[in-house]
C-alpha cells in the first residue's frame, strides 16, 4: 500500500500580494490582481525578505520561490530545524520558462556591449532548475531536487512528482511548487504572436467574451510530507494530496485536444489514484485560462469525466483573479484550493457573466459562496494543462 501524503505548509507570492492566505482571502473577497492587462506582483519587494547577496544571486522567478518557501516552511514548523534527515527531503520547483528576464537582459548586454560584459551569473540565474537549487540551498535540503519544465502544468507536476517520491519511500518530505517571472517584452511579444493573449486585457474564463489569457507572475511552494511521519512529529496537517493523474495529448504543440481527451484521462487517473468517484468531488479548481480553446475543451473534459454530477459541482478559475502564472499556476491553484476547501468556500470566477453555448457548468460567477458539502469529504480536483500537451491533475482533500 502506498504511503499517505499530507500538506503541512503553504506559501505564495501572487499578484494579489505576498502570502498564501492573502491570495485566498483577497480572491474570495472578489479582489483582482490584474492591472492594465497583467498580473504583476506589485507588493513584492525582494529586499524585504532576502539579503543583497541573495537578491543578486536569484532571478525574479527564484526570488518568488525562495520567499514562498520561507512561508511554507515556517507554517510547517520547519523554520528552526528540519524534522527529518536532510537527505530524505527533496526540492521540486517547476517553471514554464525559468529566468527569461536574466536571459533577455544579458542578451541585450551581449549585443550592445560585447561578450566580455555578459554576467557570469547569466546561466546560473536563468536555468530552469535555479529555483529548485536555490530553495534546496536556502533550507539545506539534500534529497532529490529538480525542476519540471512542462509549461503551464509545471507547478502541478512538481507536486505530483513530490507525492510520488514520498509514496514510493524515496523521500520523507518534499518542498514542492512552481514559480514564474516572465513579464518581459520578449515573452509578451511571443505569446501575442501566438494569439494566445487577451486583447482586452481581461481574464474571464469560461465567459462567451473571453479572448485569451492575461499573463501573470508569482510562485507557490508547499511542504509535503509522509503522513505517518508528520503525525509522529505532531505536525498541523492542512490537507492531503489524494491522487495525481498525468497524461499527454500527443496532439498539438500548443492547442489542446478539442474534446479534452488527455485532460479527461488525467482527471480520471487522479480520481482512481485517490480511490474516489466523481460524486465525491465537491469543487473543481479549473485550469480555466480564458482562452477560447482551453475553456471549451476543459468543459468537455469535465463533462466526460464527471458525467451526471458535472453540473452540480462548482468550477472556478483562479486565473480570473491573478491571470495565468504559467509554470507557477498549478502550485498556486493547489494552494488556493486547499484553503478554499478548509474554509468550505467556493471561490469565484471573476468577470464571468455571459454563457456560451455548451459551456454550461456552474462556474461560480462573480462572487464566492459557501461550499455545500452535505456530509461529504472536502475533496477537489485542481487541473493544470500546458503547451506541449502536458496534463497534470491533483485530487486534494482538506484536513
Amino acid at each position, binding site marked *: 500500500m502506498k504511503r499517505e501524503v499530507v500538506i503541512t505548509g503553504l506559501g505564495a507570492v501572487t499578484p494579489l500580494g505576498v502570502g498564501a492566505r492573502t491570495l485566498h482571502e483577497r480572491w474570495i473577497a472578489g479582489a483582482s490582481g490584474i492591472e492594465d492587462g497583467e498580473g504583476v506582483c506589485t507588493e513584492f519587494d525582494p529586499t524585504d525578505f532576502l*539579503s*543583497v*547577496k*541573495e537578491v*543578486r*544571486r536569484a532571478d525574479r522567478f527564484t526570488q518568488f520561490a525562495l520567499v514562498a518557501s520561507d512561508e511554507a516552511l515556517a507554517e510547517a514548523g520547519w523554520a528552526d530545524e528540519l524534522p527529518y534527515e536532510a537527505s530524505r527531503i527533496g526540492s521540486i520547483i517547476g517553471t514554464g520558462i525559468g529566468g527569461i528576464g536574466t536571459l533577455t537582459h544579458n542578451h541585450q548586454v551581449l549585443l550592445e556591449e560585447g561578450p*566580455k*560584459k555578459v*554576467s*557570469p*551569473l547569466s546561466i*546560473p540565474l536563468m536555468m530552469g532548475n535555479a529555483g529548485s537549487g536555490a530553495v534546496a540551498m536556502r533550507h539545506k535540503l539534500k534529497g532529490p531536487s529538480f525542476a519540471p519544465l512542462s509549461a503551464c502544468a509545471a507547478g502541478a507536476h512538481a507536486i505530483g512528482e513530490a507525492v510520488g517520491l514520498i509514496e514510493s519511500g524515496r523521500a520523507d518530505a518534499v518542498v514542492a511548487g512552481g514559480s514564474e517571472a516572465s513579464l518581459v517584452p520578449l515573452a509578451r511579444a511571443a505569446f501575442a504572436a501566438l494569439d494566445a493573449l487577451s486583447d482586452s486585457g481581461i481574464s474571464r474564463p469560461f465567459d462567451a467574451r473571453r479572448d485569451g489569457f492575461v499573463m501573470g507572475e508569482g510562485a507557490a511552494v508547499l511542504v509535503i510530507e509522509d503522513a505517518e511521519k508528520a503525525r509522529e512529529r505532531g505536525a498541523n496537517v492542512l490537507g492531503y494530496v489524494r491522487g495525481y493523474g498525468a497524461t499527454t495529448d500527443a496532439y498539438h504543440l500548443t492547442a489542446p485536444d478539442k474534446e479534452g481527451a488527455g485532460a479527461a484521462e488525467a482527471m480520471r487517473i487522479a480520481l482512481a489514484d485517490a480511490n474516489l468517484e466523481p460524486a465525491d468531488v465537491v469543487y473543481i479548481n479549473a485550469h480555466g485560462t480564458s482562452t477560447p480553446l482551453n475553456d471549451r475543451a476543459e468543459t468537455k473534459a469535465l463533462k466526460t469525466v464527471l458525467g451526471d454530477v458535472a453540473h452540480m459541482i462548482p468550477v472556478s478559475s483562479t486565473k480570473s483573479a491573478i491571470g495565468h502564472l504559467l509554470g507557477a499556476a498549478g502550485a498556486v491553484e493547489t494552494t488556493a484550493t486547499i484553503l478554499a476547501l478548509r474554509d468550505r468556500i467556493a471561490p469565484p470566477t471573476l468577470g464571468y457573466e455571459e454563457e456560451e453555448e455548451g459551456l454550461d457548468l456552474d462556474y461560480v460567477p462573480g462572487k464566492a459562496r459557501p461550499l455545500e458539502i452535505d456530509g461529504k469529504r472536502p475533496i477537489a480536483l485542481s487541473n493544470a494543462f500546458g503547451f506541449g500537451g502536458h496534463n497534470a491533475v491533483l485530487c486534494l482533500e482538506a484536513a
Partner: protein
Amino acid sequence: MATAVTPEAVEKVVYDALPQFGADPSDISREATFEDLDVDSLDLAELSQIIEDEFGVQLKGDDVGQIKTVGDAIDLVVKRAE
C-alpha cells in the same frame, strides 16, 4: 582607454565593487579574506570582469584560486599589469 594600474586605483575599484556582492563596507580592508566577506567564486568571476573592464588586466581561474585576501587580489592585478 584602460585606467592606469596603480595600487591605489585598483584598491578603489575593488573596494567599490565588493559591497555590490553583499560585503559590508566597514569590513573591507586589505587584510580581510574573501571568505570572511562572504565573497565566493561567482563573485570573484564578476570582480575579474570589472577589473578587466577597468584596467585591461585579465585574471584567470588559476589566479583567482590563489588569492585569499582583498590585498592579494589588489597585488595580483598590479603585478599582472607590470
